[in-house]
């Protein structure tokens, strides 16, 4: 089985779901998403290899962000099936997929503006004893130890991403680049196994783009699997292997970027047009 499956509609038998120890981390088979007759995602079958950054590119309206939303569970699939780590997650709501380690970020910054940077990270921490009604009512003595441990964990992330100095700042006051970093850090607090990034570098200064790229490479080297929608092809070429190309809701090609650049239909659909 290749890291990224064949284009077009699915080949996997329903009785033969992927096995996590052998196969890819995520498998989508014949996934469709319709909006009142419009097929935004039209029979996409892909496989996301473990420990790599897979790029997802295509012209505007190709269905990239919709596919990401369907994989994460933010939007339900109209048809098709999705497996994550060997288990089918097609019907799981977004919060249950996130708890299993399938975590997404958004195209537009989605910081919790009236929470501080540190609070933004702590919100994402899973299994906090104080993050339930009962835990809250039992008081600080019950959950204080968890809080201290998670604050340490959050501060490690802030140190690593060079944002420790902003921990008490309201997230709404951060710059665009800092908000992007915060969103990535917040997703990392969940200890994801697959991170779905929707244009994490859109509209950012090249220096910040290089900074985020370096962080993503480091995360990949530590074993995190990433699927990333990105428009800037230089960044995609540097970071992503393999790359999936979408147009009009379908996958029209996949593989290493240098090879894709030579394919006529991809050049026509995206690289030139």
């Amino acid at each position, binding site marked *: 089985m290749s890291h990224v499956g064949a284009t077009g509609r699915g080949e996997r038998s329903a009785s033969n779901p992927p096995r996590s120890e052998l196969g890819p981390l995520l498998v989508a088979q014949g996934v469709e998403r319709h909006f009142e007759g419009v097929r935004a995602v039209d029979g996409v079958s892909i496989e996301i290899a473990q420990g790599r950054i897979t790029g997802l590119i295509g012209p505007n309206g190709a269905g990239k962000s919709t596919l990401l939303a369907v994989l994460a569970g*933010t939007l339900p699939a109209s048809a098709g099936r999705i497996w994550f780590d060997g288990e089918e997650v097609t019907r799981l709501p977004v*919060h249950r997929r*996130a708890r299993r380690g399938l975590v997404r970020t958004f195209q537009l910054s*989605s910081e919790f503006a009236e929470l501080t940077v540190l609070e933004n990270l702590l919100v994402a921490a899973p299994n906090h004893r104080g993050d339930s009604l009962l835990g809250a*009512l039992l008081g600080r003595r019950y959950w204080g130890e968890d809080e201290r441990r998670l604050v340490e964990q959050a501060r490690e992330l802030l140190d690593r991403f060079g944002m420790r100095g902003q921990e008490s700042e309201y997230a709404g006051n951060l710059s665009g680049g800092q908000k992007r970093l915060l969103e990535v850090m917040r997703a990392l607090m969940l200890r994801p196994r697959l991170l779905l990034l929707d244009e994490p570098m859109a509209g950012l200064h090249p220096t910040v783009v290089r900074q985020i790229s370096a962080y993503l490479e480091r995360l990949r080297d530590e074993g995190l699997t990433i699927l990333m929608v990105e428009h800037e092809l230089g960044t995609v070429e540097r970071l992503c292997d393999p790359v999936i190309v979408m147009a009009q809701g379908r996958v029209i090609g996949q593989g290493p970027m240098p090879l894709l650049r030579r394919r006529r239909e991809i050049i026509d659909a995206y690289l030139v047009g």
Partner: protein
Amino acid sequence: MTYYLTTLLVYAGVDVIACVALNLQFGVSGLVNFGFIIFQAVGAYTAAVLSMPPDTANGGFQQYILGLKLPFPIPWLAATAAGGLLAIPIGLVVLRRLRSDYQAIAMLVISVIANTLVTNIRPFLNGAAGLSLVPAPLSEHLDSGSLAYQWLYVALTVLCCWLVLVVANRIVNSPYGRTLRAMRERERAAAALGKNLVALKLTMFVVGGSAAALSGAILVGFIGLWAPASWLYPETIVIFAAIIVGGRGNNLGAILGALLVPVGFEEATRFLPQIGPPGLIPAMQWVAIGLLIIGFLWFRPRGILPEPRRRVEGEA
């Protein structure tokens, strides 16, 4: 004068509980519950029909269900439970499939429907005339007309306020409260971080509904009557106004708002000289509350006591 003071204090306590409860829903969690007043009403009716004798007593001039004549504090406890229980079906219908702006409209509609039904089905809760002669708590043992009893009632109200505040403060200052605030800020992002939005909203519906119902039970035990005119949907707007004025998301702001708007504002207008046709001043009260909301949203949207910045362990 002392009776006036105790009455004012009990009303203030009732409004404080209602405002803190709605603050949990609206200020902290972002739930626009335009049907909030029906939870106070269900508490008042439950406490009334559980503490009153069967409707055949008193010459049968009123019709109502139950009439179990249960001793205090069972009617108050049952009222609190009823508010929470009512929140479950309403919450499941409204919260599961509707977008938050439609949720607000649905709650407003439910509030109007509930009031219309209670008004028109007389055998249920005595229709538009409402329930009267509701026994005061412990009135079979104590003289409910005495000054000592009035102060005892104030003390009971203060105790309930304190309990509700302890619960609200623990929720707001905990990691759970942080999650509720995150949901208020961006629902989609909170869900993508593993938060079950329906469960969070439903829980706040139940907690807020229970507290609102308790406030209704306290009120009906004190004034001895309750009718559909007591819980028309604009009453919810007054509580919203209190939170917007006091400072949404801040329990202290909710208390301040309760003291300034439903208590202070309405008491202040009571002493205005009669001008114009009868009913002009009460009507102008509604206009003034509307202007108060618009003014604060325009000039001071975070209220007099804005939501404080929360410090986590060891934060500078």
